[in-house]
C-alpha cells in the first residue's frame, strides 16, 4: 500500500499525568513520577520505589459505557480502556465514523502474566489457610482447592488473561476488525503499534487502536525483577533513582500505565478531515538470538532494528532529529544502546539528541514502547526534547548527547523510538512530521 499511515489521536495513563495535556508538560518540566511504593507495604524489600499511577486521578467509570464491565477488568485493562477512550476522543472519531469491521485493536500487554494485587492476595490467603488448617507448614493443594473455591469469585480469573485488555477496548469501541495482543514485555508496546501499522498497510483495517498497557507493581513483580538484579535500590532518593546513561546508574524503576494511539489509513483520515498529528512512518524488529537477558555486546541486534526501521520509513540517518531511547538505566542496556546508536548512525550519532523518558516515568514494561512513542510525538509537535533527568556524572563509555536534566527547545521532523528487551527482542518505530 502506498498510502501513509497517520496518527490522529493519543491517550495516555502515566505516573506523571493522565492524558496528553498533563503528560506533555510533565515531560517538558522534567517531572519524576517515582516515589516510595504505596500499593503495598514494602519494608524489607531491596527495592522500595516505583512509578505508580495516581488512582485518585483516574476515574475509571468515565471511560466505560457499562460500569459492570469494570468488575472484569484488571488494573492494566482499565488503563488501556481509559487510554483508548482518550485517544479516540482526541481523534474526533465518532461512534459511527468507521465500519466496525475495519476497526482493529492491537495492544502490548501482560508483562508478567496479569497479576493484580488483590488476586495475588486472595491466592496467598488461601495457600496460607490450607497450610495452617491442620497445623501444617506447607501448601496442601487439596485443602487449597476447597478454600480457594469457597472464597474466590469465579470471575476473577478473567482479570488474569492478557488478551482481555484488547477485548475490553474492542467492546468499548465496537471494534470488530483484527484484534491481537503482543506479549514481548519490554518491547510489547512498540511491537503492538508496529503491528497496527502493518495491519493497515496490509489493507486489513482502516483504523487501528494500538498501544500497550501494564501494571506490575505488586510484591511478586518487584521481587522478581529485583532478584534478577535489574532494579535500582536507590530507595532513599526515589526521584533520583532512575538515572539512564549516568555513571552511577544501578537499574531501572518499575512503572505502570498505558498509551493508545489511533492509527489511520491516509485516505480514510483525509476523507473524514481527521486531525493528523503525525505519520507513523517506519517499524523495524529483530531478535538478538543470543541470551535471555544479556544483549549482544556488539549491539548488532539493536543496531539492525534501528536500521530496518529507517529503511522501512525510507528515512536517511540525517532526517532523525531525536531518539527516544529504551534507556532503562541498567548498566548494560545503556552501554549497549549507545553502541547500537553509534553503529546505526556512525559519526552522526554525536550530533543526535538521545534521551530516556524512563528517567522520569520509570519502565512501563509492556506499555513502555507505546508511552514513549507518544512522548516522541508530543516532542515533535511541541518542538522540544524531553530530558534525561538525574544525569549527574557522565559515563565515559556513554558519550552521546542525552539531553541532560532539562528539556531543550528543538524543531525536528522525525523521531525514532527504541525498545530493546529481555529475550533480545528489539523494536523501533519512526514518527515523522506529516
Amino acid at each position: 500500500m502506498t498510502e501513509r499511515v497517520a496518527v490522529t489521536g493519543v491517550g495516555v495513563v502515566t505516573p506523571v499525568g493522565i492524558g496528553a495535556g498533563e503528560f506533555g508538560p510533565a515531560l517538558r518540566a522534567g517531572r519524576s513520577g517515582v516515589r516510595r511504593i504505596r500499593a503495598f507495604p514494602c519494608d524489607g524489600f531491596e527495592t522500595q520505589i516505583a512509578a505508580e499511577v495516581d488512582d485518585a486521578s483516574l476515574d475509571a467509570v468515565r471511560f466505560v459505557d457499562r460500569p459492570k464491565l469494570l468488575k472484569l477488568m484488571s488494573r492494566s485493562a482499565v488503563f488501556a480502556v481509559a487510554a483508548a477512550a482518550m485517544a479516540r476522543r482526541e481523534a474526533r472519531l465518532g461512534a459511527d465514523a468507521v465500519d466496525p469491521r475495519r476497526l482493529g485493536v492491537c495492544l502490548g500487554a501482560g508483562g508478567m502474566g496479569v497479576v493484580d494485587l488483590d488476586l495475588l492476595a486472595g491466592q496467598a490467603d488461601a495457600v496460607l489457610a490450607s497450610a495452617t488448617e491442620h497445623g501444617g507448614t506447607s501448601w496442601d493443594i487439596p485443602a487449597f482447592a476447597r478454600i480457594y473455591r469457597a472464597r474466590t469469585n469465579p470471575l476473577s480469573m478473567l482479570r488474569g488473561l492478557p488478551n482481555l485488555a484488547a477485548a475490553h477496548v474492542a467492546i468499548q469501541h465496537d471494534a470488530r476488525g483484527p484484534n491481537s495482543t503482543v506479549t514481548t514485555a519490554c518491547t510489547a508496546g512498540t511491537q503492538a503499534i508496529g503491528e497496527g501499522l502493518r495491519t493497515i498497510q496490509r489493507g486489513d483495517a482502516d483504523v487501528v487502536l494500538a498501544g500497550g498497557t501494564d501494571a506490575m507493581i505488586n510484591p511478586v513483580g518487584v521481587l522478581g525483577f529485583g532478584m534478577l538484579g535489574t532494579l535500582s535500590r536507590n530507595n532513599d532518593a526515589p526521584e533520583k533513582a532512575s538515572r539512564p546513561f549516568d555513571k552511577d546508574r544501578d537499574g531501572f524503576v518499575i512503572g505502570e500505565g498505558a498509551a493508545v494511539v489511533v492509527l489511520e489509513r491516509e485516505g480514510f483520515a483525509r476523507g473524514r478531515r481527521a486531525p493528523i498529528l503525525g505519520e507513523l512512518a517506519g517499524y523495524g524488529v529483530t531478535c538478538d538470538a543470543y541470551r535471555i537477558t544479556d544483549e549482544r555486546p556488539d549491539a548488532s541486534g539493536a543496531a539492525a532494528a534501528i536500521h530496518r526501521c529507517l529503511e522501512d520509513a525510507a528515512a536517511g540517518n540525517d532526517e532523525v532529529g531525536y531518539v527516544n531511547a529504551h534507556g532503562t538505566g541498567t548498566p548494560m542496556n545503556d552501554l549497549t544502546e549507545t553502541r547500537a546508536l553509534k553503529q546505526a548512525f556512525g559519526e552522526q550519532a554525536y550530533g543526535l539528541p538521545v534521551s530516556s523518558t524512563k528517567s522520569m516515568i520509570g519502565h512501563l514494561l509492556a506499555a513502555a514502547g507505546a508511552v514513549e512513542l507518544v512522548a516522541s510525538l508530543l516532542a515533535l509537535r511541541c518542538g522540544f526534547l524531553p530530558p534525561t533527568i538525574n544525569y549527574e556524572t557522565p559515563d565515559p563509555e556513554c558519550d552521546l548527547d542525552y539531553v541532560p536534566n532539562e528539556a531543550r527547545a528543538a524543531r525536528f521532523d522525525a523521531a525514532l523510538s527504541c525498545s530493546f528487551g529481555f529475550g533480545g527482542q528489539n523494536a523501533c518505530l519512526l514518527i515523522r512530521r506529516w
Partner: protein
Amino acid sequence: MPADTPLVANERLGETVRQIIADVLMIPVERVHPSSALVMDLGAESIDFLDFVFRLEQALGRKIPPSRWGDFVKERLDGEDLASGITADIVREFAEREAAAGA
C-alpha cells in the same frame, strides 16, 4: 457477609438477593423489581450468573453445587425464553430453595 453467619429469614433473604443482583450488575438496587428480567431488563450476561451463585454461597454460608442453578432454571422455566424468563423473583425463589435445602 462472613461465611459463618448464614441467612435464614425469608424477608432478609429477599432483600439480600435484591442487593446481590444490584451488586453483580452494578446498578442501583432501586432498579431491581421482582418482575425485572435480569437479561432483558437489567443487562445480565452468562458470566453474571456465576457471580450471583457465588455471592449467594457467601450469603448462605454453603457451597451450591455447579449444576443446581442450571437445573433449577430448566425445570422452573420449562422452555420459556431465558432472557425474559429469569426474573429477580425467580432468583429469590432459587435462593429460598437453597437456604431451605441447607437448613
